[in-house]
């Protein structure tokens, strides 16, 4: 039943199909660009996907047969995952006559560069914005640039460039690169690019060997299960936003890598049986609109979840399977009573997420087993869901504390179901059972909040580290209960109550 295998990858760079065999599975796209191609426009600022100096854009053909562009961090993206995609770097943007791209011209005109080292990354993030939004608000611009650090400018001129770039475009061009986001028909250039990309799509399983190292990109869950059976020590690779750091920071050798991003079943998502089902390889960026449709209260959390390049590569499945105590998706998934569908060569089983985490970086996955799907029951009427993320910096930061809350009230205003979960307070993200028990069946009151806060102190024994002290974590976790009841009562009385993150800022339409 094994799929046909190929020992090469193909991707497009500047209109040329690049075909590679003998690829080191964990060679990063940035290493490939800078060291192999001597294409040095993309910079290394941190090698961990946090500064954005390496930002490049991947273009892929969507289900609508249009070309879609997304920014990613080249520093932690492994080269073989480019298979079937078009890679655009800062060098791709200049016209053949040497003219600057509208994004580049806007950056020059607005004085958006000083030392210039972060600039290629900004240009590529702005290019992705240029292709994906039409007249972006400040919030949209901030979000698009959340993964790019600039130490010189103070960002104001870059924000100006993000607005001015649309005006720097010459009249509608046939060049897909030059055309800003539009709902119009595809240009002939775009069609050419789509055709070229389609010509390198294939149904084969990629199986690369590089010395003693192996890389597989299977197409089906069956095959993935089979490969995991054959290579029990293999490292599953999804977005690589964490595994990438094992290589660039810890210099770990990964002998066998199995990439989930081409497994058809893992790339799907939808709503069925009163639940949202998200395949384990669905990126965070892809999952966000579906999640927001059913859980609008996740708006701020998802906006502040890492950065666009990370969300464009990283997956919800990866965040969940990784099980970091400070992963931002899990508290919300825990209070939503999410389940995981786990799969192996022996079949599938479902496990509540609350039972998945055993201890620090230990989970319930058996050998040969992988996460296939995250199943999130749709909220019921009367559910009040809230999430709060507390970090030193609003954007692209890791939580000191992340709290998620789902309370169901009856008509008398009594809490009939309470789900409370926190990240950042224990070795794994987990529920606050004592706190939940206090709330269960009670009517909200100042006294109840105090009791719940007291119970919460018994639920968790947080630690002190560089992100926050144990004392702060404890205090904030308790205060967030107060914030929760304030927000719920404000919402019930129709009063608008914005959190500090959005204070005074116009939210996107």
């Amino acid at each position: 039943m094994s799929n046909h295998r190929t020992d090469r990858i193909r991707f497009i760079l500047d209109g040329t199909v690049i075909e590679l065999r003998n690829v080191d599975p964990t060679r990063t796209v940035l290493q490939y660009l800078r060291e192999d191609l001597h294409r040095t426009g993309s910079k290394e600022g941190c090698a961990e996907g946090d500064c954005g100096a390496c930002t490049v854009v991947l273009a892929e053909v969507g289900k609508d047969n249009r070309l879609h562009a997304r920014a990613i961090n080249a520093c932690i993206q492994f080269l073989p995952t480019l298979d079937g995609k078009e890679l655009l770097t800062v060098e791709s943007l200049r016209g053949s006559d040497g003219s600057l791209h509208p994004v580049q011209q806007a950056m020059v005109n607005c004085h958006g560069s000083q030392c210039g080292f972060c600039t290629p990354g900004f240009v590529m993030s702005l290019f992705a914005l240029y292709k994906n939004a039409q007249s972006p608000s400040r919030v949209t611009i901030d979000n698009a640039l959340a993964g790019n650090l600039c130490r010189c400018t103070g960002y104001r001129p870059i924000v100006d460039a993000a607005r001015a770039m649309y005006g720097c475009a010459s009249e509608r061009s046939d060049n897909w690169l030059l055309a800003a986001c539009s709902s119009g028909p595809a240009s002939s250039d775009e069609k050419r690019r789509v055709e070229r990309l389609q010509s390198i799509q294939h149904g084969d399983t990629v199986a690369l060997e590089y010395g003693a190292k192996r890389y597989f990109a299977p197409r089906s869950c069956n095959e993935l299960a089979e490969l995991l059976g054959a290579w029990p020590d293999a490292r599953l690779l999804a977005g690589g936003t964490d595994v990438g750091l094992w290589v660039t920071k810890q210099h770990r050798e990964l002998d066998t890598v199995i990439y989930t991003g081409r497994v058809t079943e893992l790339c799907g998502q939808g709503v069925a049986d009163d639940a949202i089902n998200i395949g384990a390889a669905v990126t965070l960026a892809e999952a966000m609109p579906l999640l927001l449709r059913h859980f609008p209260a996740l708006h701020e959390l998802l906006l502040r979840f890492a950065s666009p390049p990370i969300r464009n590569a990283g997956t919800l499945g990866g965040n969940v399977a990784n099980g970091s105590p400070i992963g931002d998706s899990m508290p919300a998934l825990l209070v939503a009573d999410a389940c995981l569908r786990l799969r192996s060569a022996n079949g599938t089983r479902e496990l509540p997420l609350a039972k998945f985490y055993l201890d620090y970086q230990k989970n319930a996955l058996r050998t040969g087993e992988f996460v296939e799907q995250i199943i999130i029951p749709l909220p019921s009427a009367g559910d009040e869901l809230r999430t709060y993320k507390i970090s030193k910096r609003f954007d692209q930061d890791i939580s000191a504390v992340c709290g998620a809350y789902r309370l169901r009230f009856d008509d008398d205003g009594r809490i009939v179901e309470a789900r409370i979960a926190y990240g950042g307070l224990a070795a794994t993200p987990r529920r606050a059972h004592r706190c939940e028990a206090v709330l269960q069946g009670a009517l909200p009151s100042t006294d109840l909040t105090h009791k719940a806060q007291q119970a919460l102190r018994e639920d968790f024994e947080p630690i002190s580290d560089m992100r926050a002290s144990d004392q702060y974590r404890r205090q904030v976790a308790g205060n967030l209960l107060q914030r929760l009841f304030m927000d719920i009562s404000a919402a019930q009385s129709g009063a608008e109550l914005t959190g500090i993150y959005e204070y005074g800022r116009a939210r996107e339409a």
Partner: protein
Amino acid sequence: MDAHAKPDAGGSVAGAAGSAIPHDSSHLHVSGEATYTDDIPEPRGVLHLAVGMSTRPHARIVAMDFDAVRRAPGVVEVLTADDIPGDNNCGPVVADDPILAPGLVQYVGQAVFAVAAHTVEQARKAVALARIEYEDLEPVLDIPTAIATGSFVLPTETLERGDTAAALDKAAHRLRGELALGGQDQFYLEGQIALALPREDGDLFVYSSTQHPGEVQHLVAHSLRRHSKDVVVECRRMGGAFGGKESQAALIACIAGLMADRTRKPCKLRLDRDVDMLMTGKRHDFIIHYDVGFDDNGRIEGIDFMFASRCGMSADLSGAINDRTMFHCDNAYYLPNVKILSHRCKTHTVSNTAFRGFGGPQGMFGIEYAIDDIARYLRKDPLEVRRANYYGVGQRNVTPYQQVVDDNILEEITQKLVRTSDYAERRAEVREFNAQSPVLKRGLAFTPVKFGISFTATHLNQAGALLHVYTDGTVHLNHGGTEMGQGLFTKVAQVVADELQIDVERIKITASDTSKVPNASATAASSGTDLNGKAAQAAAQTIKARLTRFAAEHFRVAESAVVFRNNAVQAGDATVSFAELAKMAWFARVPLSSTGFYSTPKINYDRSTFSGRPFYYFAYGAAVSEVIIDTLTGEYRTLRVDILHDCGRSLNPAIDMGQIEGGFIQGVGWLTSEELWWNDQGELKTHAPSTYKIPVCSDVPEDFRVEILESGLNREDTVFRSKAVGEPPLMLGLSVFYALRDAIAAVGPDGCLPGLRAPATPEAVLAAVSAVRATQ
């Protein structure tokens, strides 16, 4: 007529002084073509280096075993302190900074050995295979321990004017404070890097990302037991520096140079971000005590300051940095009786170094805190107390170090900014909002900046330039300054363009190069344009004088009748293009190359008494910031910022604006989200952007109103009467800190003095809120 020239008697040249032209490299930045050191095509046989770091804060090295390192794939050489032929030192002032640890390690992250391999990955992997045995010694890890045990890198200094003790005793009111102020990583986006190429006869050519090529040259030469003439250092541009590549770049260049010399191969050392942050110095953190006496109006009668900084394991530039703290703890205020005690603490942590502001920001933080306290204690608007203490004009105008403040424009700036920012109305609005909002509180603060311009070490205030004019009238420009993004190269080119009256495109800006301009000072102290602009102008004037003399003779007119204007030269009735004149002069054997030199006039300063005139002039500015805090979590946002800053007569308003805004945001980062966190083992745990949080786009207020003072004019004879702008705006960021403190104070009763540490992370803000609430 030269085809390229566009003589037009009425117009002016492109890029003349004062024009807002883009950064000279902007088109290269945006297209990825700007070449940084790591982008230079690697020479044949290049080796890549990695550095093995100490894992102990203070220990003797008992044994080192590199067998596994040497056996690792691709490894070519291992280098330790014993292999250094010359001085094992990269300290800029005091020779106490070993390149590689000589048997004793003094901080976690200190360079112990270096490995050369064929690839970066090989070198970095091999480093981890070394076996190093340590014998731990007692470390000093914080400032209080250092003070208690008398652990200092340099002697404690005192500056006193008047009788502070008597003034404190007599004063109507007296307050004391103890403040904690964190450090800051430079976080230049381009990490430290050097590429060293062996040349014939043992010479070396070094590409170094450095603010101070001359010092790198000297230190590399001396580490090799060679001479300055044997080493050339070049730097076209840095991907940011902010002081972090003033002295610290030498360590990286020395290691690359030593390995290149030993292997006779080109050697490149590029630090990974984590290694960079662990191994290289940062802004000094401080503990500050003050004891202040004042009258009913809040006017200071006497103040006694104690500043204690964490210098780390060596002196580095800590002497001058702490001196500058002493020089700036007056900020904009007249301190009639003042005593300043400055401890330079030795700790077993990385040696702290220059960072934009160079100790000045920490001094200002101290006085602003004291003034804020005075105002709160007296239940006055802090702005009122600030103004009551401003330096006067013609009186109350002598600094604690005896320099007369004779260019004071504080009141002018304050009046304008108070008006344009609607300070009074917004003060009332904030009060009203806070009265009605139990959880969210707003805060508003106005803070001024007065910053002294010049290196306090007088001898550093010199610069050289080298200028060639070619026969086609184009110009090759070189000077001792370095380009780190601040736009220095652009501004100096504008000065030359204006002086020679040629379009700036006709000037080739070239890399800093120790073989063109010798012994240049570091590009630091905001002085890059002041010094190098003047030096380049002098070179241009020399050539212009020669061309004038030649034209006068050639066209038989008086020299006064020769006018350079807009790419052309008029000599009486004759007009020739600049290029034509250059060619004619060449035929006539007139030298078309010149050096230029500049040394800052008027300054003199006696360090033994801390008195004199260390600064040529002062730069001024002010900011009004408004914030909102969440008293449940300590989170906050900056809602609006208004800035008015003095650039003298700006050479390039666009570039100066970039310095003001960028400096401000960097200052805000220092005082808010950027937290350096060490564990009790002396290990820095915030050594990458995942844990060390500099401001991002969304941290910049949407309502951000920045103005350059239109009437700005340097009273001193600086280049085109401009003012230095690199460092002063950083300290405008203090306004955000004091706005946060204002918001926190709104939680308590009038007159409360919230204790807020810096950086004011959400945790620090919540702690301050809780402390205020606990006292109620």
